[in-house]
């Protein structure tokens, strides 16, 4: 039995009950077994990973310990530059020389921490939109049910953690792209505070919205990765000097006030298991000592609109030249999202940034009364891949986001941890979001860990089980 979490694997490596090579071989075995079906990888680095794993084993044997990610199989979303292979952004458009031979700062930091990067994972094209089977890339599928979507855009990182192809990995989040696959794949995903992690070396989608963060099985694992990722890098003008140190994970939430948000999160079409799963998760948090208070999020609709305007305009600025000359080469859903940028005025964009400031301030006021906000990440389990398009064959993003509640948090920039909280009647994962004040990752990770100390939703493994690292 191989360890399920980074934390357990790190312990096993140091106790000598496993090796990095064994973990990596198991990860490769899992990929051999399931990747053709679920489309986790765009590029696999098996040989490189085994070399790095052997190096990690040798270093650990010599007492050279680089920390909890040392020797751990790790996936990287293929929108982040990594020297070992080209970055595609799962697109025909991106110049394959972009970032060639170089590591994004976050990749560089993971390598320095000894992570064994097993490959580049699938994404929605340029981290937005939906799958397009007409393009020469895998259509990502959910390991819990391959007829369903794993979520996006960090699809492969989510499905790979769930299916045991690596123990943790990197995603990016501009409208929900870490938290949606975390929710649909039944794993944990952390969108850090905007600016806490440098985003240079990442193909941009929305300059003022993009966040890079981890997906892993547990909150504790996400904390271990954030410790490595966080910190100033001069190349990102948005990056701030705010390194992160994981809190003590005691499971005791005494004194923590958790604001419970139900408004907007239980629309028509919500899964019948959502409310009981949400209430059960809240009950666990209360049992651990937290005080629950019902609350509402300020400027909910405005922040969803602000995310839409900001992403559309910022993405169109980056892509317009290519859109004019290579429109058919873009995925249908990608170009649809980017075209919205042409439907707003410059004043609309600036007004969105003014209202973002107002909402940030109002939310900061709310966080003077609560430490953490809890709400469902999505109101249902993963949709079927075939249902992602509307009756006219065009991508139906509106239908998806009527049940997914993530974009608000990208607009305000606060950190959010998505953790598993149960299953639908069809056996698809449901997810709880725990949001904190700016730079308040410690509190949400403590809350997520407390939930995971009393439940095992995050340790459930989709069947069929491959002989992987899960």
């Amino acid at each position: 039995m191989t360890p399920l979490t980074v934390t357990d694997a790190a312990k096993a490596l140091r106790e000598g009950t496993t090796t990095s090579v064994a973990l990596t071989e198991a990860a490769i075995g899992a990929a051999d077994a399931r990747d053709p079906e679920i489309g986790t990888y765009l590029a696999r680095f098996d040989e490189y990973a085994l070399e790095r794993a052997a190096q990690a084993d040798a270093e650990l044997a010599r007492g050279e310990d680089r920390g909890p990610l040392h020797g751990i199989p790790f996936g990287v979303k293929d929108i982040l530059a990594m020297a070992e292979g080209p970055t595609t952004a799962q697109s025909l458009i991106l110049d394959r020389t972009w970032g060639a031979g170089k590591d994004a700062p976050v990749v560089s930091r993971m390598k320095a921490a000894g992570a064994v990067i097993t490959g580049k994972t699938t994404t929605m094209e340029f981290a937005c939109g939906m799958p397009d089977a007409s393009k020469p890339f895998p259509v990502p599928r959910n390991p819990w049910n391959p007829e369903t979507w794993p979520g996006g855009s960090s699809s492969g990182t989510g499905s790979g953690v769930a299916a045991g192809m690596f123990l943790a990995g990197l995603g990016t989040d501009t409208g929900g792209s870490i938290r949606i696959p975390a929710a649909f794949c039944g794993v944990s995903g952390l969108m850090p505070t905007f600016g806490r992690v440098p985003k240079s070396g990442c193909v941009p989608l929305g300059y003022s919205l993009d966040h890079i963060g981890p997906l892993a099985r547990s909150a504790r694992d996400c904390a271990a990765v954030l410790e490595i990722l966080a910190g100033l890098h001069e190349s990102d003008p948005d990056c701030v000097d705010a390194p992160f140190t994981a809190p003590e994970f005691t499971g005791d939430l005494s004194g923590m006030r958790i604001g419970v948000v139900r408004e907007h999160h239980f629309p028509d079409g919500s899964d019948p298991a959502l409310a009981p799963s949400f209430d059960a998760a809240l009950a666990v948090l209360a049992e651990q000592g937290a005080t629950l208070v019902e609350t509402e999020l300020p400027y909910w609709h405005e922040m969803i609109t602000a995310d839409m305007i900001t992403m559309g305009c910022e993405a169109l600025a980056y892509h317009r030249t290519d859109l004019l000359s290579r429109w058919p080469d873009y995925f249908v859903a990608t170009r649809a999202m980017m075209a919205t940028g042409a439907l707003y005025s410059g004043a609309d964009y600036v007004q969105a940034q003014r209202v973002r400031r107002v909402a940030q301030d109002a939310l900061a006021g709310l966080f003077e009364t609560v430490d953490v906000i809890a709400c469902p990440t999505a109101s249902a389990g993963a949709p079927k891949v075939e249902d992602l398009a509307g009756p006219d064959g065009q991508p139906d993003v509106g239908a998806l986001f009527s049940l997914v509640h993530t974009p608000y948090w990208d607009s305000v920039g606060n950190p959010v941890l998505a953790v598993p909280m149960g299953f639908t009647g069809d056996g698809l994962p449901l997810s709880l979001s725990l949001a904190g004040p700016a730079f308040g990752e410690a509190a949400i990770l403590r809350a997520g860990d407390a939930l995971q100390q009393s439940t095992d939703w995050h340790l459930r493994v989709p069947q069929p089980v491959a002989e992987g690292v899960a």
Partner: protein
Amino acid sequence: MTEVVKTLLAAAQLPASEAEIAAYVKGYESQRAAVDALYDVEAARYVDPALRFRAGARIIPWASAPAR
């Protein structure tokens, strides 16, 4: 609304197909109303946007910046 959307797309020179334009038009009215609602946020009346320009800022290539 169809003509508005067509005009805006044409101004941006985006070569969307008729089917795509029809899909964009379907969502445009509610989308426009949501955008217009941002101008009704009274608290934003005298607020600076979340945009900042820094004189003297330099572009630092990410792959050659000092590793940290």
